[in-house]
């Protein structure tokens, strides 16, 4: 990145209006002004539904929507026809599990991690139950170090499906998805990856990784809320039934039957979040202009600094993966104070963090804590933000007299 953080922050209008130290990007990232502008442009200049419109606004909306698909595909190393726009990671996950319910035979085993966010865990859990599959969970290590070998060991000849979290939304741990995928493919198991905390924060290339399905949200990578992606290998998507059916995805309909259009439209029933998809395309362009390597290097620097500074505070226990395998998240517990009270006081001090189980309840049970406080970093954060966090934590200790 040739521009400084200060220059980069100018591209986020929210910093003009809010003095809050924003350390909650793992919940949702801030939006660059450029992304806001393209969303606004759609509504104010060429608002129309995509496809089949024979006037210039509809043609432009279609062109911009499909251009966004191409941008996103390029960003994750996929073909455009393998990128399905969805309402977000959770919808993507529910869709793919619904598709797999149709696609897979009954029985066999599914392997996934205790580390998973509920968005992956719960649809997978239900799929396993409905398909009568044995659900094998891979545990986390107490040091929050990602353990790909445990995954590889859990995969057996009976494994049909493997669910992997690319990066943990709690500990920041980045898993070696390629290694797990290779092991899964050796036994002809399919791999579904939740890359919500990873895409836009580090390089993710689906073809290189050879994963079968991968999903993420737009709003954690500088895009608008309400839009996400489901990636699937083209040859698999072609064979699969759409989980949602209705308008915009048929080639023929009679009173008794219907035939579907081609992939990916087949999986985009109904009017999509057109502005959202276009905004996501712009977010991808923005991230490219900064450079993902720069984004990741920056997050690592801040993570390292936060681990050092926060770790030096007495009574703080860190739940954060080693820097070189961390996407930019530092969760922690403060002795004698509940995470909600920590977050409340930090909030009053102008530092935005998140407290709770971060939709990863079984992970917190495995770590032996009811909840945690999470600070997450992105490209617009600075060391000053970390300093504000540490000052805030000391203030908490002062208020609680611990």
């Amino acid at each position, binding site marked *: 990145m040739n521009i400084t953080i200060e220059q980069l922050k100018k591209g986020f209008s929210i910093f003009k209006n809010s003095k809050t130290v924003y350390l909650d990007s793992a919940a949702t990232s801030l939006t660059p002004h450029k992304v806001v502008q393209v969303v606004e442009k759609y509504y104010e200049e060429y608002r129309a539904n995509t496809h089949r419109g024979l006037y210039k606004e509809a043609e432009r909306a279609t062109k911009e929507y499909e251009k966004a698909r191409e941008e996103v595909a390029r960003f994750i190393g996929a073909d455009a026809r393998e990128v399905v726009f969805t309402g977000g990671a959770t919808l993507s996950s529910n869709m793919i599990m619904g598709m797999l319910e149709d696609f897979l035979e009954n029985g066999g085993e599914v392997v996934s991690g205790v580390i998973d966010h509920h968005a992956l865990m719960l649809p997978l859990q239900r799929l396993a139950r409905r398909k009568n599959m044995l659900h094998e969970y891979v545990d986390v290590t107490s040091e929050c170090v990602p353990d790909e070998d445990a995954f590889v060991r859990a995969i057996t000849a009976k494994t049909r499906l493997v669910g992997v979290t690319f990066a943990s939304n709690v500990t920041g741990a980045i898993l070696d998805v390629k290694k797990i995928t290779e092991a899964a493919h050796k036994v002809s198991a399919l791999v579904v990856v939740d890359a919500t905390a990873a895409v836009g924060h580090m390089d993710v290339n689906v073809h290189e990784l050879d994963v079968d399905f991968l999903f993420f949200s737009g709003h954690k990578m500088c895009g608008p809320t309400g839009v996400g992606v489901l990636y699937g290998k083209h040859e698999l998507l072609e064979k699969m039934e759409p989980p949602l059916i209705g308008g915009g995805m048929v080639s023929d309909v009679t009173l008794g039957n219907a035939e579907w259009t081609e992939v990916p439209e087949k999986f985009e029933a109904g009017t999509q979040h057109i502005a959202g998809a276009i905004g996501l395309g712009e977010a991808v362009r923005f991230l490219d202009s900064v450079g993902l390597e720069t984004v990741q290097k920056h997050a690592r620097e801040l993570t390292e600094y936060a681990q050092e500074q926060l770790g030096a505070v007495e009574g703080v226990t860190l739940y954060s993966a080693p820097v070189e395998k961390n996407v930019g998240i530092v969760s922690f517990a403060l002795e004698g*104070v*509940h*995470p*909600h*009270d920590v977050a*409340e*006081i930090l909030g*009053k*001090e102008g530092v935005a963090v998140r*407290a*709770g*189980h971060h939709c990863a*309840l079984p992970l*917190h049970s495995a770590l032996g804590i*009811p*909840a945690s406080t999470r600070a997450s970093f992105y490209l617009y954060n600075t060391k000053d933000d970390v300093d504000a966090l540490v000052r805030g934590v000391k203030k908490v200790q002062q*208020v*609680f*007299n611990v």
Partner: protein
Amino acid sequence: MNEDLYKQHILDHNSAPRNKEVLENPTIELPTKNPSCGDSYILYLNVKGGCIEKATFTGIGCAISQAAASLLTEKVKGMTVEHAKKLTKEDVYDLLKVDISSGREKCALLLFNGLQEALGSLE
């Protein structure tokens, strides 16, 4: 700032909660949870002749939910069931004597909601 919320009596009830113990052979034992934050309590009541003889609780939660549980169990001890049923969330806020923001409402009312559910199941 936060001193408004974390007043001394809240911190006191948080660090040394009253009635925080398991009650043997209770009339009612009711688990109550806030699934969004993981706060989890069990409320124990001993009810005799329409009167709450003893109210205790166990569990884990933030300072606000701890203090509310501590204060509420103190308040209802010796109270008739009919009277306790008429308690409102404003009564809980009065006990806490601090401004509860919408984000902390569930914390403040966690045990209160458990209490109302427990009392409602008595018939």
